[in-house]
């Protein structure tokens, strides 16, 4: 999870933006209670999307308290009281984050990532104890992904499958009554995150000779702008089948709670982000950075 699933604040009122923030605080609190303060930095908007989605799907009763926290030490803010879903997502988030950093380190990441990996050893070990099943599956999926990346697999559906299954498995394990539509929704959300990250990193991946699933698939990279222009039609197919599948599955769930925020993400934010990257070809690093943590 990379923090791409943000809200489009321009299309939400203050109350709705506050609702999104309140849920983020819920995961952050769960992370603090289970793993301590340091791991709170791992909380991102992608995992908060699952938080809102799962609460809505389960129609879980939520309660909110007013309290101070580390990012708002003087003024009380609304915080979601932790519950089963926030706790389990906090655990899943630590497992996903650790495995992602480990994967980067195996690929030869620098000293910063090595230090980060060491600092995550303890939280990861606890997370593995709390959810050994998820930990095992995530490791297996990353291993499969590494194999495909090392082979420079050009079958983009196959490469995306490993990453897409990560969020799908999180849904399957955390939500005991996960329906087919929720399962497919989470799969396509994971696939979109993997693809948008690849689109975002086209130039730097090419420059640093890192595997990029889009370059491997289309194999005609000269520069970012040219690549997008040359493959525009296929890129639209690739991205919009995923985005529309997300919308379709979401509509079929007939959710009734937190739909103001979920609609904003599914109908606007992720589509606009895709459109923007496909049209301008420019990387909006500010948007990406803003998505890491509220």
């Amino acid at each position, binding site marked *: 999870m990379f923090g791409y699933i943000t809200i489009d604040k321009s299309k939400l009122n203050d109350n709705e933006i506050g609702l999104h923030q309140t849920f983020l605080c819920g995961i952050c609190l769960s992370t603090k209670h289970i793993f301590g303060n340091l791991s709170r930095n791992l909380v991102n908007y992608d995992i908060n999307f699952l938080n809102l989605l799962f609460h809505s799907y389960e129609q879980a009763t939520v309660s909110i308290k007013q309290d101070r926290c580390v990012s708002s030490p003087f003024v009380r803010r609304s915080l979601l009281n932790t519950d089963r879903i926030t706790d389990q997502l906090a655990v899943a988030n630590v497992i996903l984050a650790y495995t992602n950093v480990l994967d980067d380190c195996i690929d030869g990441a620098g000293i910063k990532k090595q230090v980060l990996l060491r600092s995550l050893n303890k939280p990861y070990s606890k997370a593995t104890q709390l959810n050994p099943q998820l930990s095992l599956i995530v490791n297996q999926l990353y291993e499969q992904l590494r194999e495909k990346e090392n082979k420079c697999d050009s*079958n983009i559906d196959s490469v995306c499958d490993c990453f897409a299954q990560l969020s799908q498995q999180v849904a399957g394990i955390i939500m005991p009554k996960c*329906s087919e539509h929720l399962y497919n929704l989470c799969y396509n959300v994971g696939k979109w995150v993997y693809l948008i990250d690849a689109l975002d990193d086209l130039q730097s991946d090419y420059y640093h000779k890192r595997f990029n699933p889009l370059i491997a698939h289309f194999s005609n990279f000269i520069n970012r702008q040219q690549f997008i222009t040359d493959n525009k039609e296929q890129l639209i197919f690739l991205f919009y089948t995923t985005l529309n599948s997300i919308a379709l599955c979401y509509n079929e769930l007939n959710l009734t709670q937190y*739909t103001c925020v979920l609609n904003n993400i599914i109908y606007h934010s992720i589509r606009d982000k895709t459109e923007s990257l496909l049209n301008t070809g420019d990387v909006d690093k500010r948007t990406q950075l803003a998505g890491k943590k509220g």
Partner: protein
Amino acid sequence: MIYNPYEILGLDSDFTREQLDEAYRTQRAHYRDLRFESGEVGADAAERLEQIESAYKDLLNTLERRDSGSYDSYAHIKQLIIAQDFNGAQAELDKIDNRDAEWHYVQSDIFFKKNWFVEAKKQLEIAINMDPNNSKYTDTLDKLNNYLASNTVNPDQMRTTSRPVDGTPYNNGTCTGSCCGDVCLANVCANCLCGGCH
């Protein structure tokens, strides 16, 4: 967890019409009364009843195809796809040496159900190349290109079924599903904004 009509009605893939009707009646009768129970039991039963209806319709269609003589050499694979056993379906498909247009169509279906849309499209195009006059193939490709892959469709109107999007009894357009809950939750979240979250 995953929708499987055979599992829902407790039937094998070689079921008969009598067995289907019997299973449908029995399952429906069981959950019909339970749906009025309070709490999770009632909610589960209501959800189960919806699944039973869908499973019954799907298996009726399967039966009709089988009885109308359109029972083809891929029927068992298509049943595995309906049962969401994609690995099983792929293994069976791989055993077939004669790869005609229908083979590629079925392969496309497996890819599609796995959300592998690029591969699904490739296989459909091969099927159409081999049998250009088959409207089933061309219609499917047309839907894939002009509906699922479209960047101009309205995402809030996308459905697999013909259920109305607006005016469903469930969705009143609020955040929490109830106007009262919406106001309460929005108020506390508004406080959050005043508290300097941003």
